[in-house]
């Protein structure tokens, strides 16, 4: 405090002035009077008489009053005794490789008993928008080792592809599996997982699944728990994305970021907005929720002339399983497709319980094909999806008028649908499937259909891969017999 008493010239602060006493305390907010030279959105150190240090953000400056939002809440703060120092910089974290292989809390403090992240270059966690004219178009796949995703909704480097789920479904399990297995076929690959508002049980389960990847130094785990202060939850994904951007664009890594659960994040945004006294929009979420979510989701991508990429998989639970709820709705408008989990599929015991007809990876076309996955990948996926749509309408018809009234072709489609869930979708949560195996399985499923139904496939591909109609006489038994073994191709050949 060598400068104490000397008027500070604007924007050139070395040692911050400490102000003692707040004129108002309520919710997460403190009002401090008599301040000078405080900038909007800068960080404040809030010191309690006990010596406890909390962090705050400047929400508003007006005349000589600054409104400070305390990240850890204002519980236990005596307005007369609290002192606040403004640090003249936004909330930032040091960047570097030291994050890897460790577990952190939502603000980037160690949770694993290790040392704090050593101060390197600091970056504001809010990031800056990427110049859209310098974005490179995503064009290569990320393999998740999960057949249904890799085959039908391929994740592409630089893409944002959310998982829409609802309470009681294994979305966290799926997210952890993706985080544990994802790879880009031999190139540098890192994973950053941000847990937001996770219960301790969920967080523990996640840590366990991700342990080996973390141990090999390829993973950063940032965990904000359900009982952590909500203001911190608003920062958690930003901390994770700041780390990811550094690893991707300065270290040249392909980085996958998993954000779970975005719904908890949005609840936190809503709670903070209510505490600020803002006018509520749909379902009392603030009107800027779209822009706020975009400021997270749009931090994925690739940059022209740089080797790395940030790929984003946000996980969100749809309250009341309602896809028109603001959180999934606004997410869907920003992200490039969605993976939708379904309670109906879950009830049949299939994992991962993905509703394939609602699932879409908009960038898939850019990430698959000859030289990336396989030449017939796109056509194969289109054929499977179209056939499932036909199977679904046949199923609905059968429910109304009875399966006997269906045409022979429609009945084959029902068998196709069964084979699809059994042989392609169903997979163990710890099972990694190669693309070869996934394609082999996909063709086996498609081969349940008669050849004339494969109208979307190039004929050359059908000639090489089609197995004769697997259903021809008693397809059911035939398919079951070859269940889940990747050698079946040779048996059949």
């Amino acid at each position, binding site marked *: 405090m060598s400068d104490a008493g000397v008027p500070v010239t604007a924007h050139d602060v070395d040692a911050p002035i400490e102000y003692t006493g707040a004129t108002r305390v309520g919710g997460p907010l403190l009002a401090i009077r008599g301040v000078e030279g405080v900038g909007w959105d800068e960080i404040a150190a809030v010191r309690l008489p006990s010596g406890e240090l909390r962090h705050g953000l400047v929400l508003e400056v007006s*005349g000589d009053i600054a409104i400070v939002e305390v990240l850890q809440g204002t519980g236990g703060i005596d307005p007369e005794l609290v002192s606040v120092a403004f640090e003249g910089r936004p909330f930032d974290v040091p960047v570097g490789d030291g994050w890897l292989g460790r577990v952190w809390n939502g603000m980037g403090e160690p949770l694993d008993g290790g040392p704090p992240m050593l101060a390197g270059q600091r970056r504001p966690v809010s990031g800056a928008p990427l110049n*859209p004219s310098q*974005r490179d178009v995503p064009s290569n796949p990320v393999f998740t080792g999960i057949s249904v995703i890799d085959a039908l909704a391929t994740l592409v480097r630089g893409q944002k592809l959310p998982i829409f789920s609802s309470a009681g479904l294994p979305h966290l399990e799926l997210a952890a599996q993706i985080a544990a297995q994802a790879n880009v076929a031999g190139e540098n690959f890192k994973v950053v997982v941000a847990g937001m508002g996770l219960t301790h049980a969920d967080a523990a389960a996640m840590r366990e699944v991700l342990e080996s990847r973390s141990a090999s130094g390829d993973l950063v785990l940032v965990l904000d728990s359900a009982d952590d202060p909500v203001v911190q939850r608003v920062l958690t994904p930003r901390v994770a994305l700041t780390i990811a951007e550094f690893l991707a664009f300065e270290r040249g890594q392909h980085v996958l970021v998993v954000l779970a659960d975005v719904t908890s994040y949005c609840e936190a945004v809503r709670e903070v907005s209510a505490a600020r006294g803002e006018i509520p*929009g749909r379902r009392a979420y603030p*009107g800027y929720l779209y*822009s706020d979510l975009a400021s997270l989701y749009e931090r994925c*991508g690739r940059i022209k002339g740089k080797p790395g990429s940030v790929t984003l998989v946000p996980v969100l639970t749809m309250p009341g399983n309602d896809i028109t709820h603001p959180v999934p*709705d606004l997410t*869907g408008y920003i992200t490039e497709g969605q993976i939708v989990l379904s309670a109906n599929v879950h009830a049949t015991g299939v994992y991962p319980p993905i509703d394939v007809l609602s699932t879409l990876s908009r960038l898939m076309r850019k990430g698959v094909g000859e030289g990336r996955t396989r030449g017939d990948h796109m056509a194969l996926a289109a054929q499977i999806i179209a056939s499932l749509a036909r199977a679904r309408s046949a199923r609905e018809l059968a429910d109304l008028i009875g399966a006997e009234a269906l045409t022979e072709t429609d009945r084959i489609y029902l068998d196709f649908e069964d084979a699809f869930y059994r042989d392609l979708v169903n997979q163990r949560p710890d099972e990694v499937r190669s693309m070869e195996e996934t394609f082999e399985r996909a063709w086996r499923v498609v081969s349940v259909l008669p050849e004339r139904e494969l109208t979307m496939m190039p004929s050359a591909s059908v000639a090489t891969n089609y197995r004769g109609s697997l259903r021809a006489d008693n397809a059911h038994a035939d398919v079951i017999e070859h269940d889940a073994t990747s050698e079946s191709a040779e048996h059949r050949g």
Partner: protein
Amino acid sequence: MTNRADSGRVERVNGPLVEVSGLSGVAALDVIEVGPLRIAAEVVAIHEGRLTAEAFEYTGGLRVGDEATAQGRALSARLGPHLLGGVFDGLLRPLEGGPTWLEPGSLVARPSTRSWPFVPTPLELGAHLESGTLIGTLMSESGVQHRVLVPPDVFGKLTWLSGAREVAESDSVATIDGRDVTLFELWPVRRARPARARLRTDEPLVTGQRVVDLFFPVAQGATAAVPGGFGTGKTMLLQQIVKWADVEVVVFVGCGERGNELADAVADLMALKDPKTGRDLRERTVVIANTSNMPVMARVASVYTGMTVAEYFRDMGYRVVMLADSTSRWAEALREFSSRSGELPAEEGYPASLSSSLAAFYERAARVTTLGGGEGSVTLIGAVSPAGGDMTEPVTSQTVRYVRCLWSLDRDLAYARHYPAVTWRHSFSLDDTLIANWHAAQGRVGWSESRARALALLAEADRLASVVELVGIGALPSRERVVMLSGRLLREGVLQQSAMSENDAYCSPKKQSALLDMVLAVHDRCLALVEGGLPASAIEEIDLTAVIRARDETGPDDDAGVTRLRDEVLARMGTS
């Protein structure tokens, strides 16, 4: 100017909302600059000498006591020959060549270092020139000739006109009424550029997209809205129009949308050639990009900026289409600011002025006689992103009131991978009769009748489909089964269109009519066969994939190829 204070003081900062005192001589909607980074902000209210302004960039670090200065004008777009082929932000600052990360204050509109070859129009010195008079052109390799006009607010005696020479940004090319005219001009974006008269819109904007051109055509100078929930292919449809619309200039405003998508669209434009001129499509396109993570307040400006650019080219006598994706994000930005400034909210938190703002915006689209006496048009196509897919939400329901065409995107169609997912049930075109006359004048006399027959068939097939869901197809009489079949042929062979296919991405009006007439001819033949006693099940067994594949297996303009395929199919079907 004595009582004018050149510099004021920031008094309050709350996100983009900034209050300033001590700055006089500032009018509402003028732009001021605040803080050491000189962030631009638009004044939205003035109360007892205190200005309320909305900043166009992130205001982090801005302090009470920081300096504020007036720009002395309303938010203005810098119009000039640098626009075509470029990518700009919502304030029309070039993004290409800018920094990778858009930190506040990092993007500046630098004076161009380029020069352009100016060729004057033969004009007498001393002549009286009206606004909009052509004073010269720029020779360029680009497909669109840049016309240099007397700006809207300048007229009078021509005292000097440059000879043919290379002209830089700061060089003047003429002196009129004592004022220097350069290649560049500033125009306040919220003010519509003037024209001599509005004209009737009776010529279609050919988009090459069958569902639009055949069923819900939009006229040059009219408006269309494209509402659709996420995943319904809204952006894809708009991008197809960017590529193939039959106009000289395209202005695409990416307003609060995805960065990757924008990068992809621009990369596509680089790779594609204009089918008519053989030039890069990009040369006729201006892209304004304010992606969803860029500052919200610049999003409000971006649609007005885009419209101003469109009008600028309209005034040169060009046909322009402007696409705004998405107007809902613009409306949300309006809402965000009105809530910050404490305005009373109306429906769903939107300001009560939403409806009038939308109306004023859509009304800027027009076909006009320009000030210079030529003819130009701006056709406006706005995407709408209804929250929760709810078509009754304020932005959608208000927009629908002001547009001439509605292309509703349907989630069920998109899920069935029927693209473009424009539903024939809830879409409309108010200009269909005028456009039918235009087609008739082009020799497509049956256009209107075929369209009406097809729409009726689609409606009947939909009605029957709900019956079939209950009783199965077997319970329908033969004629109705044929209608179901023809409905499918229409959907798959005419309405669906593959943006990825070289043959199908663009479809000329001739080929469109040929495809439609093929399906109708097959329908008639099927009916004849059924009436001749052939059971419907036998008709359903006929291989009609050729009808569906025709769109993909004939060239974009190959109506003769389609007709040949039709004759083959009909020959194969035989007659009763």
